[in-house]
């Protein structure tokens, strides 16, 4: 069974068709990319997956269970984590707190126990802090631990956002343009992290990216969207050779 399956998904938005009849499947353990021109509906698809938008038609199955109509926080509990195109970090918290928020679904303390901060709550905080520190090590952001994320440079913020998604211990990680606005070195870093996450942590990854260098090099499968509908699906090699994709998206190589 595929980990994630999208069936005949359509989304209308103030009279504008954002997605129509999209279907695709993400296999467990793979890195899967969605590419397509701007306005093709890639981000809208992500928003449907994480429950921010409710699709007009179709179905989304995670491990065979439909997540249509579930609120975002319920979907998060099912193991879907994501990052955003324009960084959506909590700018007034420090890095640790941002990552600890990622642990939200794995923690239990409520308003009463929180007010007293003894015993179980304290132990829980420390335990989750350990997990957060692991991710901090993994992403090499030890130095900025206690800084407010709002004051960090763009590249680091992107990495923190990735970390925040990772602390959720997701089954599937949705990455929305992880390499956008990065220079070569930073792009390399991100590419490496994506591979590591996939290999070492065994997390399935679905990503949207415009940097064809990255996409073609690291992913297992690609889905191409244009005007809200699916144009092609296949391995990087197949996609690169697909005339429809070249016409709509890649352009002729000079």
């Amino acid at each position, binding site marked *: 069974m595929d980990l994630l399956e999208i069936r005949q998904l359509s989304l209308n938005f*103030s009279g504008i068709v954002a997605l129509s009849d999209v279907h695709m499947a993400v296999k467990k353990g793979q890195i899967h990319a969605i590419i397509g021109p701007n306005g093709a509906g890639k*981000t809208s698809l992500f*928003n449907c997956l994480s429950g*921010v938008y409710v699709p007009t038609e179709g179905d989304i199955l995670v491990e065979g269970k439909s997540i249509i109509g579930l609120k975002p926080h319920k979907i998060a509990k099912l193991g879907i984590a994501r990052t*955003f*195109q324009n960084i959506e970090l909590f700018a007034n918290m420090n890095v640790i707190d941002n990552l600890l928020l990622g642990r939200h679904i794995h923690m239990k303390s409520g308003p009463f126990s929180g007010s007293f901060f003894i015993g179980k709550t304290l132990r829980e905080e420390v335990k989750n802090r350990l997990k957060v520190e692991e991710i901090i090590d993994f992403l090499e952001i030890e130095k900025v631990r206690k800084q407010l994320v709002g004051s960090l440079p763009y590249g680091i913020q992107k990495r923190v956002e990735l970390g925040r998604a990772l602390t959720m211990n997701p089954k599937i990680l949705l990455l929305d343009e992880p390499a956008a606005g990065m220079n070569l070195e930073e792009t390399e870093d991100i590419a490496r992290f994506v591979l590591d996450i996939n290999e070492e942590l065994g997390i399935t990854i679905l990503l949207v990216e415009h940097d064809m260098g990255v996409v073609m090099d690291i992913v297992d499968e690609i889905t191409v969207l244009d005007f809200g509908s699916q144009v092609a699906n296949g391995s990087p090699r197949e996609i690169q050779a697909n005339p429809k994709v070249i016409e709509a998206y890649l352009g002729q190589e000079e």
Partner: protein
Amino acid sequence: MNTEFMFFIQLVVSGIALGCLYALIAVGFVLILKATGIMNFAQGEVIMLSAFICYFLVTTFHVPFLVAVLLTGIIAGLMGIVTERLILRPMLGEPIFSVVMVTIGLSIFLRSMAGILFGHNNLVFPSPFPTEAVKMGGIVVSQTEIWIMLSSLVLAAVFFIFFKYSRMGLAMRGTADHQDVALLMGISVKQVFALIWAVSFITAAASGVFLANVMVINLGLSVVAIGAFPAIVLGGLESIPGAIVGGLAIGIIENLAGGYLDQIIGGGVKDVTPFVVLFLVLMIRPYGLFGKKEIERV
């Protein structure tokens, strides 16, 4: 015609007159809200000050009424520019909360200054409008009210045209969206802000002068501005036509509640009804009747 029906019509008509006043006050709020995102809590004090200024111009300095109105407008406009220059410009780029708080500080300051400068007595404006009311088919409208309605209408039209078609109006709308990008377009944001505060204060002055004609002038006059809050929200905070429709709606609702509900439920429902209506409207339309729904983009 039967008296019940006449009663209803008369309530609606006087509600419209009252609503025009609310609309005028609401427009003053909305102008600043639209361009700068700031809710100016000192608006009521400007209204009150204008009423006092106009009163003293007419009584102490024996300035003819129309000239006094003009002078009041000019003084209010200058006050707007000074306020923007001294108080709000240093706050550019600061959190909106702090800026709103500054206007609350300003309101405290202005109110007590009004007390110091103009005293605490109840004053009655020597109204230039004849007290003879106009009767049309049994419906009574006072001349003051006719003036209020006419000038609200004219102001609304002027603002609408200004924002839709003029270069400066467009610049203001742009500034409302993104201040920093507006700067890059060669728009002098400072100028825009100074202008908007001046215009808003002038609108407040207009409502102040009219209020002076229908109410006793005292420091409590500033509270009327709070009565205009429901109008602003109903109109959707940033829409001038919305503010006007909102004002009218609130005026009519208030009067109808006063005429009918007060007898049934009893005890001052008139004042509470606008707020209850406001609450209910927000439950159904969280962005007011005319407000734009913000699209969540992530």
